[in-house]
């Protein structure tokens, strides 16, 4: 670690050095900062997606309401679904994964820090690209069935400011041919397809990175079967991403080429097969729903043991069940197509396959209950959310099982019963799990605790609001409320319950506002967390709070599952934990060396290139949308050149420059954080 390394002659830019301010965020490769950026972005999109949902709900609170136009309604539910899934839950999970995975495996960073920054910037620009459809996109009426294939409508240039109705309106699963060139002309669906493509690229990069991190970056003695469950679920999720994203990539390319260049994959009039799209989409889409839930399952698997003061019951069963869910998740996609006219053999086979997923999921649920059994349960906010997760997710899971009963799914599919199912599993499951994680790991990020009292208000209001919103959807659906209806007739008898649903959504909004207030306040004035605020079990808590930039200061040697716990506790004759004499001394030591490493620690250097490569990607996609014009062609070429040039720079730039990135005190540029203001703003 000589500080005398020469500055290589080949770098294009001066190596970014700032540790604070906007540039430090743009060039950072620190997994924690990347995680934080993911987190804030995801939350912003939660609010946006939530406001879209509120607009939908206002429209639906009356029969034959005229609050929104049909076009606006269709645009809003499309963007609501797309936003919530791709811009909220996935990046929110990515936030936890980024922040925690290296800490959980005992590493200083992920395997490829710059690739990690790249996946964040690709995500960021992809999200902007997708939402720029509100400014640039156009959504025109269908051309009709007599349209001649190959004779595409004009793309429509930028500049048609058409707020809501300029947004994609084909539903989050963009069924063909409705979302194809003849029935959704205009550019809005191109923004949708391109946006998803970019977001997929981002997740694919992360997936490779996380898998390699788990397998290769583990601390000494951190065997696979000693990994915290969240690390496991991250890895399993990464595999799901790895294998499902290429499929949607192909499907989206096919749509884009259909729409832009006149190929005929889904043009039914020319022999294209619209059902092919459904297979490809759901072949991705079903693994995707487990991508949404598995990280949350990982989170609650960390929370239950801590607040039960017992190890996770059946650790290996929980891990294998997660892997089994992922594996089976690839074999059930056609359960979204039971009404599509596939053969009875296929329907039966997919129905049976779908049912089997209940088994590993049940194993997880029961093991969590087993963890609580005989414990010393303390109902902190994270624990409340985790318990809420079990109850609410089970409802959603069981309604999922009723969908797997193929004939009853023929009645349920495309009704609000489905909407109820997936909000129960996604909101009641994934989102509850994510909130459990936020309350639990907030001290890691900020060094302070979220307020418990406000937390409990948040939980209970959200719990009540959630059930008021989504429980009535079950009976609304079974009694005839079709999905994606802008209007329903008064004689359908749906109005009363729809009003309850809308009221519930408002209660959720209030609970979220409480949470935001709690967050903003506790970041500055929350109770100081100290070293080990929850008396936790896993090694991420062996670093001080907030986590120092270099994570661990001293080499770790992992000897057990729940290593940290066993450093603090041994067991008495009855098998009850007994705090070791030296536990507090150890904590004090950890906090001290954590904040004041004994020797300089060498960290990856910041880099401009991930940002630049990420910037290049949407430029290409803008170019593709307007490829018939000169400007479009220029954008394509420009984007490619920007990416290639940045890649060359990236390749030449040494991965780290001790002299510049060094973390020693002489440079001492990092701010002295006051009052919990670490370097994150």
């Amino acid at each position: 670690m000589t500080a005398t390394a020469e500055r290589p002659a080949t770098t294009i830019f001066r190596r970014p050095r700032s540790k604070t301010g906007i540039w430090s965020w743009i060039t950072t490769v620190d997994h924690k900062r990347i995680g934080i950026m993911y987190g804030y972005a995801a939350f912003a999109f939660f609010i946006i997606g939530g406001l879209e949902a509120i607009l939908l709900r206002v429209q639906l609170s009356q029969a034959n309401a005229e609050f929104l136009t049909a076009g606006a309604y269709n645009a809003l539910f499309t963007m609501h679904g797309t936003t919530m899934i791709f811009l909220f839950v996935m990046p929110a999970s990515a936030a936890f994964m980024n922040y925690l995975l290296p800490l959980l495996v005992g590493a200083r960073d992920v395997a490829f820090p710059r690739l990690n920054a790249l996946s964040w910037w690709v995500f960021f620009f992809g999200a902007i690209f997708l939402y720029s459809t509100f400014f640039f996109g156009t959504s025109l009426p269908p051309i009709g069935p007599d349209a001649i294939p190959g004779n595409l409508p004009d793309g429509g240039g930028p500049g048609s400011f058409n707020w809501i109705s300029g947004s994609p309106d084909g539903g989050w699963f963009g069924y063909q041919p409705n979302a194809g060139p003849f029935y959704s002309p205009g550019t809005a669906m191109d923004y949708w397809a391109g946006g998803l493509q970019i977001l997929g690229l981002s997740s694919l990069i992360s997936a490779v990175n996380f898998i390699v991190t788990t397998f290769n970056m583990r601390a000494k003695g951190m065997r696979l079967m000693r990994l915290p469950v969240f690390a496991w679920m991250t890895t399993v999720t990464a595999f799901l991403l790895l294998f499902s994203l290429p499929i949607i990539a192909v499907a989206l390319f096919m749509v884009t080429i259909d729409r832009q260049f006149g190929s005929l994959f889904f043009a039914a009039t020319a022999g294209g097969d619209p059902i092919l799209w459904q297979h490809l989409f759901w072949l991705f889409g079903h693994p995707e729903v487990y991508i949404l839930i598995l990280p949350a399952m990982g989170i609650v698997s960390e929370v239950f043991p801590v607040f039960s003061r017992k190890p996770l019951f059946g650790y290996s069963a929980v891990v294998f069940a997660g892997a089994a869910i992922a594996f089976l998740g690839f074999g059930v996609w056609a359960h979204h197509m039971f009404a599509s006219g596939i053969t009875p053999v296929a329907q039966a086979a997919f129905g049976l396959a779908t049912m089997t997923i209940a088994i590993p999921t049940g194993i997880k649920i029961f093991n969590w209950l087993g963890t609580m059994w005989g414990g010393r349960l303390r109902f902190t906010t994270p624990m409340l959310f985790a318990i809420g997760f079990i109850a609410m997710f089970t409802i959603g899971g069981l309604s999922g099982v009723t969908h797997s009963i193929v004939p009853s799914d023929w009645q349920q599919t495309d009704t609000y019963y489905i909407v109820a199912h997936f909000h129960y599993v996604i909101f009641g499951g994934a989102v509850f799990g994510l909130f459990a994680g936020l309350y639990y790991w907030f001290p890691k990020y900020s060094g302070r605790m979220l307020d418990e009292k406000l937390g409990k208000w948040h939980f209970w209001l959200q719990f009540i609001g959630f059930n008021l919103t989504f429980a009535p959807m079950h009976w609304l659906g079974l009694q005839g409320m079709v999905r994606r209806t802008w209007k329903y007739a008064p004689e359908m008898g749906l109005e009363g319950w729809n009003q309850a649903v809308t009221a519930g959504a408002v209660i959720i909004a209030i609970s979220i506002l409480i949470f935001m207030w709690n967050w903003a306040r506790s970041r500055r004035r929350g109770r100081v967390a100290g070293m080990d605020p929850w008396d936790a079990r896993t090694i991420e808590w062996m670093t001080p709070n907030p986590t120092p930039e270099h994570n661990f200061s001293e080499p770790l040697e992992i000897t057990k599952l729940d290593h940290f716990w066993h450093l603090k506790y041994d067991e008495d004759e009855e098998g009850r934990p007994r705090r070791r004499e030296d536990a507090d001394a150890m904590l004090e030591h950890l906090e001290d060396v954590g904040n004041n490493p004994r020797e300089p620690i060498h960290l990856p250097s910041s880099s401009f290139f991930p940002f630049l490569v990420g910037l290049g990607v949407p430029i290409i996609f803008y170019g593709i949308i307007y490829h018939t014009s000169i400007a479009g062609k220029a954008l394509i070429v420009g984007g490619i050149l920007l990416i290639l040039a940045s890649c060359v720079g990236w390749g030449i730039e040494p991965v780290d420059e001790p002299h510049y990135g060094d973390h020693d005190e002489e440079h001492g540029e990092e701010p002295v954080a006051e009052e919990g203001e670490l370097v994150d703003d």
Partner: protein
Amino acid sequence: MTDVAHVEPVHEEHESTGVPTLKLGMWIFLSSEFLFFGALISNYLLYSNRAGFEGLYPAEIYDIPFTSVSSFVLLMSSLTMVLAHNALSRGDQHGTRTWLFATAALGAVFLGGQVFEFTEFIVNYGMKLTSNPAASAFYVLTGFHGIHVAIGVFLLLSLWGISHRRGGLSEKSGLNVEMVGLYWHFVDIIWIVIFTVVYLISLPPA
């Protein structure tokens, strides 16, 4: 893209599995590419012999001798690639440089062949992307393969360029050569499948 794990290890064993991090990453990425090309190939299989399309089916106009030659060229580029890597591991900078360039050149020849083939199909036979779904599937499948080859050529030429620097390719770049090699061979095996399944086996509808 090159990125070497360089985070200072918290402990001695740097790579818990013993496989270099970059290499593990490359293998994992490649395993996902199966799903990518699998979708494209399935798409082609779905449409290639559906009856009743307007216009020509790709399988009616393949030029097998021509494609055989270009397939052979791509296959042999795998040989030159592996020779480049081998030369580097023996410290033979000159050999490395030569073989890298040969590989890129063979790749470029293959691409040229593809451009020729497409032009032939479009101009002489009038089978366009927009002719029918089978034609669309053909162009998109072989086109995406071609893009992969082009990226490979770019990577190879970059390595070749770097190899001219003083001191040639370092040992660290040895890993990079191996990575590009893995990618290159992978693109080759995909073509092995495409050549057999798409060109030799698939038939137009009876």
